[in-house]
């Protein structure tokens, strides 16, 4: 975190502690997407939205005891994760876990019996990420594939890549072991890799 973003965060926290409506609006915009990503790890879409809304109301009181030992983002994500876990506990539901193979079957099939490439990647994704994202069709395609990912993989991926949490934080928030997190991340990335490859070759999603 840069000094200026740390100052901004400190200011935001001060505003929230003082009960300033505008500070809350700013925080809601900055942190809700990540909080939703956490909640979706545990719950279906509408329950996840419900939990995130409830959390924001809870934060109005809780923020007064926030001491800044972790960043605001991590603190908020933990609140969401705890709420979700309580909810699952009361509904007596388990978090589904699929942590088996680290290779996607579709990719695993592209190697021969000796473990060499049978169908190697043909093209290089040479464009930079920013240029690729200017391609609206690719961006839509990415959205589509992200929403098709298993919840566990998507949450891990979003928290790690888009919300830039460190591995330890993600493990803590989602209550998964370091090795499970590695598998979740790798499985999700392979799917995105396969999607971009198809898109570059065929222009279709």
């Amino acid at each position, binding site marked *: 975190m840069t000094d200026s973003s740390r100052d901004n965060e400190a200011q935001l926290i001060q505003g929230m502690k003082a009960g300033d409506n505008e500070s809350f609006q700013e925080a809601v915009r900055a942190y809700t997407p990540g909080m939703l990503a956490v909640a979706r790890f545990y719950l279906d879409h509408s329950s996840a939205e419900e939990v995130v809304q409830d959390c924001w109301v809870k934060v109005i009181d809780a923020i007064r005891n926030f001491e800044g030992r972790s960043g605001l983002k991590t603190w908020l994500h933990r609140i969401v994760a705890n709420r979700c876990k309580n909810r699952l506990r009361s509904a007596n539901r388990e978090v589904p876990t699929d942590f088996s193979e680290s290779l996607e079957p579709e990719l695993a099939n592209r190697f021969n019996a000796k473990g060499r*490439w049978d169908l190697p990647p043909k093209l290089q994704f040479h464009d930079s990420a920013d240029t690729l994202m200017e391609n609206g069709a690719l961006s839509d395609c990415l959205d589509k594939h992200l929403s098709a990912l298993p919840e566990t993989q998507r949450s891990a991926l979003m928290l790690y890549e888009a919300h830039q949490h460190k591995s330890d934080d993600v493990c803590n928030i989602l209550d998964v072991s370091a090795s499970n997190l590695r598998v979740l991340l790798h499985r999700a990335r392979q799917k995105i890799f396969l999607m971009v490859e198809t898109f570059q070759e065929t222009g279709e999603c």
Partner: protein
Amino acid sequence: MLMCKDLAAIASDYIDGELPVLQKMSVRMHLMMCRHCRTFIGNLRASSNLLSAHSSGKADEEFLRRIDERVAEALLSVRKNKDSDSE
């Protein structure tokens, strides 16, 4: 010896710098000799950058406004309670 398929299985760990030193060395050796795996690692890394650049974090505006409303309401009732306490 590390085969292409083994490398593909640990590619994310390599990209994120999470491999133990010896495994990292054998990945590097393999990459020096294998063009396909170089392309694969490059493309997997590009996919990962793509995700960081993609603002899939966006939440829909109507949902955000609903949160604003609930927060504003709750703030108001906190304030009212305070006022009645001080009376």
